[in-house]
């Protein structure tokens, strides 16, 4: 994080005087659970992209169509919304979660990745 400023050097009222500064804030440090993408199960419905509150779904256009490509872990705060709305994570008949290997997004404890 950038060096912290003293009170004399800050705009009053907690105002932020330039746009787009959220980009500089690494909300990825908040993550307790990490979404992991399993592309083989993805049907590119883009629900995850639509719902993600932090625009952390990486999308690529293939033949003019959007494809889910994975996560931007710099900003992904691990809220799990994407996994929650992903239609591939639920069995349409039983409405129960499907086996992990069949899901397109699984949530893993961040501690599994400490090596990284």
């Amino acid at each position, binding site marked *: 994080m950038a060096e*912290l*400023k*003293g*009170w004399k050097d*800050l*705009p*009053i*009222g*907690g*105002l*932020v*005087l*330039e*746009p787009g*500064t959220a980009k500089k804030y690494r909300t990825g440090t908040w993550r307790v659970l990490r979404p992991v993408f399993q592309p083989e199960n993805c049907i590119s419905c883009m629900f995850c992209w639509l719902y993600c509150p932090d625009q952390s779904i990486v999308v690529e256009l293939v033949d003019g169509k959007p494809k889910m490509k994975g996560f931007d872990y710099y900003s992904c705060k691990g809220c799990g919304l994407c996994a929650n709305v992903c239609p591939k994570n639920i069995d349409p008949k039983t409405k129960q979660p499907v086996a992990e290997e069949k899901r397109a997004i699984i949530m893993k404890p961040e501690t599994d990745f400490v090596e990284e």
Partner: protein
Amino acid sequence: MPLKQAITGAEAVAYAMKQINPDVVAAYPITPQTPVVEYFAKYVADGVVDTEMIPVESEHSAMSAVVGAAASGARAFTATASAGLALMHEIVFIAASLRLPIVMAVANRALSGPLNIHCDHSDAMAERDSGWIQLWAENAQEAYDFTVMAYKIAEHKDVRLPVMVNFDGFIISHGVEVVETLDDELVKDFIGKQIKMYPLLDTSNPVTYGSIDMYDYYFEHKRQQVEAMKYVPKVFKEVAEEFAKISGRKYDLIDEYMLDDAEYIMIALGSTAGTIKHTINELRKEGKKVGLLKPWIFRPFPKVEYQRLLNGRKAVVVLDRSASFGAEAPLYQSVKSALYEIAVKPQIGSYVYGLGGRDITPTHIQQAFEDAFKGDLIVDEERYLGLRE
């Protein structure tokens, strides 16, 4: 030409706001503030002002709406009292911490419970640490004058803080007095063009208001608020001086009534000061050296002025129209703490009076003065005027 009008304090405040012609007024009615908003709503309905009036569903919304309006760059006004102010509480702090030059008139009324609609100062005192500037009027004239002066203080670039104009519920808000109002043009020129800082509607310079402020920066922003308050006395004096030029009425941080040679000084906020002045006139006839120190501004608390004025006097009697349960009454607390640093400390005593609109008469005031004359003031004893034992 100044115009003499027989009007209530509520109408005087509304009249000042008509002359100021604010961009936005959002308010919710509550006794005894209601007539302020009623009079103003009539100006809006009659097309006398250009104000966007927002009738909201609660005071929480009223304060939220003026916060939004002020952040967007509008001159915004609201008025309330008692429970209404309490319901605003959360947003009252936000208005100050976002450094928005909002003006709010408060027709001071007791807080429930038991339910009571009459005057005391518990509503404003509950907001004394909210970061608002608090002006206190003695009568309808002062309520009018402070409303006219308020935006100039609030909008000053070194201040950028909201201003609360306090005037006693019913006593001032509903009492008819002769008020000398200024010409519309004069008020307009005095108020001047609004000084905008960081308006949200300036889309070519986008800013963000109200983002989350964690342990890394919140403290620094609070320190800035502390600093802004330090500029208020100077700015208040400047504005008061300018106001004196157009009105002939001189204001300062403190109203000094017969203070020069006074040995016994009473301190009180609001309308009771009028009764005290009357009592002082009577006591002076008997040769008693008595005087009144009436704070026109309570927040910030101009400690140095109190020290200058109270050093070496015989006794100081502080009257509070609100209690601080389990501690000393708010005005008394502040005065007593100011006296800690002075060379020759007077005797000092605390008197709570007038809660829930209980009448205060010259006899009560005389009674407190008599205690002081006898040397019978006890620094750690809170006494009560007009209370049945």
